[in-house]
């Protein structure tokens, strides 16, 4: 059973990581805890579902559409709400509150359009295929999720680590003013980041919607909570952190469910997070500046 549980942990961890990816990107660059990320994730799910069931779109096209729609939403949130807030020198918690409002709007709009009941992807859209390797049951969808999580992470990581763009984003994250003095188009990069992050949220919504099989207007809410834990654990804005944090949470949960008690899954996960923060106050990958004065 151990092998199966490890696989379970890997998938769950990847699911968390996938969600956290866009979340941490916005956090890292815009320094905003975007609490509408859960709702944007949900929109991704519904968008793909609609494309599949109303337009008979193939899954890959539906994914693309979902990314486009949620990305656009993210961009709109940035242009219409976050940008004016930046221009007005809003205190740092204000944008977060605005995104709560956005989340509420999107959730109730989704309920208005699709109803409150649980929806599912038609069975034939699910990537078929199931293997048994050494007693371990593996579904194609799970492989897809793990693979996509790792690939996206790797792409994003190298894009940000090795390039001028990555440095620019980190510069913006620290000080938009200083960055603009270097010729960095701060607003432009904020927009791009918002789009990409939301699009990542959208694709996460599709994949998890496929896997979890229960699409509801509220589906983003619990993910938000876990996602927040993941990005903090990983260290804010750190792409690697999102993956490691996600996997960590996944493993902590699965292992404690499997070997302690399933009652304790979340308690163990959050208890560990709590303890880790006490030991590493900036998360696993958070960078610490020592200089005091």
């Amino acid at each position: 059973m151990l092998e199966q549980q490890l696989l379970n942990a890997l998938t769950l961890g990847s699911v968390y990581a996938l969600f956290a990816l866009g979340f941490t990107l916005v956090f890292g660059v815009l320094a905003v805890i975007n609490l509408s990320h859960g709702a944007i994730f949900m929109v991704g799910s519904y968008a793909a579902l609609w494309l599949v069931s109303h337009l008979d779109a193939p899954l890959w096209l539906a994914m693309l559409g979902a990314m486009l729609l949620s990305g656009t939403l993210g961009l709109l949130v940035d242009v219409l709400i976050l940008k004016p807030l930046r221009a007005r020198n809003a205190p740092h918690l204000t944008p977060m509150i605005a995104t709560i409002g956005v989340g509420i709007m999107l959730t109730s709009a989704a309920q208005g359009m699709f109803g409150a009941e649980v929806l599912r992807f038609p069975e034939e859209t699910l990537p078929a295929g199931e293997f048994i390797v050494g007693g371990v049951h593996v579904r194609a969808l799970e492989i897809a999720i793990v693979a996509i999580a790792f690939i996206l992470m790797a792409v994003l990581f190298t894009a940000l680590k090795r390039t001028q763009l990555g440095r620019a984003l980190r510069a913006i994250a620290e000080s938009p003013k200083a960055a603009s003095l270097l010729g960095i188009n701060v607003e432009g990069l904020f927009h791009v980041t918002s789009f990409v992050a939301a699009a990542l949220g959208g694709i996460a919504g599709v994949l998890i919607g496929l896997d979890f099989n229960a699409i509801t207007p509220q589906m983003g809410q619990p993910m938000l909570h876990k996602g927040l834990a993941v990005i903090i654990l990983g260290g804010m804005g750190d792409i690697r952190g999102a993956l490691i944090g996600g996997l960590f949470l996944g493993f902590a949960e699965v292992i404690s469910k499997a070997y302690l008690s399933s009652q304790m899954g979340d308690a163990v996960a959050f208890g560990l997070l709590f303890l880790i923060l006490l030991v590493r106050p900036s998360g696993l990958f958070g960078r610490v500046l020592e200089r005091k004065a």
Partner: protein
Amino acid sequence: MSVLLRVHDLAVSYGHIEAVKGINFHLNSGEITALVGANGAGKSTTLLALSGLLRATRGTIEFDGQDISRLPAHQIVRHGVVQVAEGRAILTTLTVAENLALGAYTRDDKAAIAATLAEVYEIFPRLKDRAGQFAGNLSGGEQQMLAIGRALMAKPKLLLLDEPSMGLAPLMVQEIFRTLVEINRKGLTILLVEQNVRQALKIARHGYVIETGKIVLADSGANLLANPEVEAAYLGG
């Protein structure tokens, strides 16, 4: 001598306090110009307006024949106007090398960038020693070197310096002024805001004296240096 930058009737306010009250001045291409004045006179405010971080409430800023007073900061940098800001604006969570690399954000010729980097390291060997360290952990003077070095990385047409000698050791101050003269000789136009008025006026072709938001004196550097009023107010007798 052509005019590189012409400022006409520039006014800047913080809320309803007008810190710069309609000033006129110009910078000749290839020259060092000094802007001096007491604390709170409006020097930094002027520079911030030039680089687009503050919006002018009135007036125009013409750079190379083009009005840049409405452009966002990052586009002004692309025009070649680069500022070393007061308080340095270094990126503390990035390493020294990363800060320098970002200085060249608007350029893309890799070889040329590497050459500039070598030059900067030559001027400030200390930065090379500390290349991998978080900029936030640098000493005050090292941060100042980084700020200047980073501005040079952009290969600017016009360099705006806000108190570059602040926090530098005497030897280093001499070094900085020597460097400024040198890069100016290679054709770079410089606007220098300094509290080290004597040194600044020594190397400046022209100088402006600003008091409570207004320009009260404009003359050649040498004349200002000899001016008894300036002597009394800024050179400390």
